[in-house]
């Protein structure tokens, strides 16, 4: 039917791809946290530089990385506009009725947009370079300590991996059922919301039935392959940290250090730049 590319994984076989997925998950979390501490344009420049380096190291076309922002473009513009109109701080540039556009507002809107887009690009680097399976493995491994408080870590990881495994199939199936109902004259893409939801029933019900049937068969297949046979489960692929991960860690550490340096020591290196432009505008 339709070609469903699996997740976002973009195989290039680069160093970044071969890093331990756990390291990559930890780095991504560090990246996400760090980005909320960025306060200056210089800081954002450092983040962008960092991303660019990762991008080159992973051999993923910059274009693809930028494209990942497209999905949230609308939200980004929307928040930017809200921020411009309603964030009231600094010099007033324009005023009409209750709407005030201020220099601080524009500044804030730009920074917010930068933050969101860099955040998305950064996390998509993880999905570009890591297969869903590696991701689940990593998460299982990272959550392992929770086993001691009786969290079924392995089951959670298995559920995630099965979900990933079945998504393309279910999408395919949705497509087929939709076609079949269209062939019976169903008008699925037209009408208002209520009409649309109602029109989706002929697709959703068979899809649901099929999902249950699949789950049933899968449960048998899991049992037949001795799922839960022993608590001492082994793993074929053992994740091991290597010197590559160490190098990557140092690199990330430098990045984080730079951001915090900017935030707490230089207190926003670019406030001088902003002042310069403000002066220019005046």
């Amino acid at each position: 039917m339709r070609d469903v590319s699996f997740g976002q994984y973009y195989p290039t076989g680069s160093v970044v791809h071969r890093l331990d997925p756990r390291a990559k998950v930890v780095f991504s979390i560090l990246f996400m946290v760090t980005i909320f501490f960025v306060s200056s344009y210089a800081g954002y420049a450092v983040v962008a530089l960092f991303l660019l380096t990762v991008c080159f190291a992973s051999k993923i076309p910059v274009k693809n990385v930028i494209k990942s922002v497209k999905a949230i473009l609308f939200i980004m513009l929307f928040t930017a506009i809200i921020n411009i109109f309603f964030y009231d701080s600094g010099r007033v540039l324009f005023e009409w009725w209750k709407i005030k556009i201020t220099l601080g507002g524009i500044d804030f809107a730009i920074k917010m947009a930068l933050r969101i887009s860099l955040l998305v690009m950064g996390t998509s680097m993880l999905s570009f370079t890591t297969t869903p399976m590696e991701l689940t493995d990593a998460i299982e491994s990272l959550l392992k300590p929770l086993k001691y408080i009786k969290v079924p870590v392995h089951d959670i990881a298995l559920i995630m991996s099965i979900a990933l495994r079945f998504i393309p199939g279910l999408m395919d199936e949705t497509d087929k059922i939709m076609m079949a109902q269209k062939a019976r004259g169903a008008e699925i893409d037209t009408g208002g919301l209520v009409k649309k939801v109602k029109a989706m029933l002929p697709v959703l019900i068979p899809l649901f039935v099929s999902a249950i049937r699949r789950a049933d068969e899968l449960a048998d297949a899991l049992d037949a392959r001795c799922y839960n046979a022993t608590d001492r489960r082994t793993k074929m692929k053992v994740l091991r940290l290597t010197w590559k991960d160490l190098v990557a860690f140092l690199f990330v550490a430098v990045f984080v250090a730079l951001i915090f340096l900017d935030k707490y020591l230089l207190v926003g290196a670019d406030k001088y730049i902003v002042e310069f432009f403000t002066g220019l505008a005046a």
Partner: protein
Amino acid sequence: MAISAIKLENVSFSYPANEGEEHKAVDGVSLEVEEGTFVALVGHNGSGKSTLAKLLNGLLLPTSGRVLVYGVDTADDKKIYDVRSSVGMVFQNPDNQMIATNVEDDIAFGPENLGVPREEIIRRVDWALEKVGMSEFRNATPFKMSGGQKQRLAIAGVLAIRPRVMVLDESTAMLDPKGRDEVMRVVKQLNKEEKMTVVHITHYMDEALDADRLVVMNDGRIVLDGKPEDVFAEHELLTKIKLGVPCVTQLAVTLNKAGMEIDPRITDEEALVEGLCRLL
């Protein structure tokens, strides 16, 4: 003396029925499968053959009677994983039995569950992939493969458990002729080279041709059991229970009925052509 791999003693099974009526999907079946044999189990849809399959590795437990796998009762809670690791099972829908997005991870799933040491798992994955002729797909994603390939991978996944019996529960029903051939070739080879006991459940009579033994089910019961050519000789009965005979046999039967001196028990094309040559 041959070892008994699977033994069913007067086994019955009913699904919980609504409105009190009880329908026995399997009704008093006794059957013994010797180690190393290739058994074809044939019946039309609803004859109880798939229910029987699930009884063989304890996915279902008999309502009455006993199922023994190498002497172990499948109802024995403590030994269920012994049963399941000796009876591997391949199912009908190739899409619904793979759990991983990557071939080798999927094959490793069984032995991982059993706590097999890592090096041994790797050896088994290599071996299983080689047995089904798919070594070059080790790191591939099953999603884009053909039905036949997916089903061979499912077989590899079962092989990695190192079972002694392989049950194929209508594993060819959803495949095209090419995929069916692929799967049948792999299974026959396993039976021959690895001395694997095979229980092949199907409704294609043509797939029963090469079996050592053909068991025919109807209405939850075994109605015929014997060498394929002897079973096919019961043409009338097989037609009555909606199964029919293999295509070539049907040709021979039709000609024979019309009045030609053709042996109605013919099962392969060579023999048919041979017989016709004498007459024409």
